[in-house]
């Protein structure tokens, strides 16, 4: 098991009522597995998870990607800047 920090932005932050959290995950967990753990921890996030983007260490990440130790994870909706 290792501890990771997750940042939440925009809709995700509002739904979760927090901007970050820490979770324990198994070594070699994937992004898809992380999403399951996250929904168990914060059920309010489930509704938005299907169109949530994920980043690992500030690069876009995908369901099958493995989360390295000490990674900085972020979850957020498709971007709407400009």
């Amino acid at each position: 098991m290792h501890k990771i920090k997750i940042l939440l932005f925009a809709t995700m932050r509002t739904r979760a009522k927090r901007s970050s959290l820490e979770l324990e995950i198994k070594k070699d967990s994937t992004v898809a597995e992380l999403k399951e753990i996250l929904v168990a921890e914060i059920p309010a996030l489930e509704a938005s998870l299907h169109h949530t983007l994920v980043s690992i260490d500030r690069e876009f990440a995908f369901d099958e990607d493995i989360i390295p130790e000490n990674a900085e994870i972020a979850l957020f909706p498709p971007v709407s800047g400009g």
Partner: protein
Amino acid sequence: MNPSLFPTIVSITEDEIDLNILLDKITLTSTGAAAIFTGMVRGETSRTGQAQGINYAPHETTYLEYEAYKPMAEEKMLQVAKEIREKWGVVEGIAIVQRIGKLYPRTPTVLIACTASHRDTGVFDAARYGIDRLKEIVPVWKKEIMPDGEEWVEGEYIPKEGE
């Protein structure tokens, strides 16, 4: 000037966007043209249609509240600048600035400027590409506050591996 020294400025800021300062930083002695795009908060939307995945009817906007994942946003802005340089080797200076925080109608929120030796070098297209790409991959979001409620604006672009 050696192209590897061409200036690239990227920034997520809460401060007012100052075009003159930015232009000064991306103007070289060989520069003869700058293409600048700036977007501002629209207080009255009269057009019906679709923007960033949301159907909208004519409405008023009281203000927009922007937030960013700053370190990733600045890295992705550098990536946009790199892509511009790969597509338009003539581009000399690039400035990409996104303002965040609470921004009211008529306020500039974003600026992208590209400079080149002449206007017919593709520099207009380069700036256009820059703003289009920013709206796809730079992690910034806005919440729209209207007289009768508020709503997060969500985009629709899903980045692919390597973006």
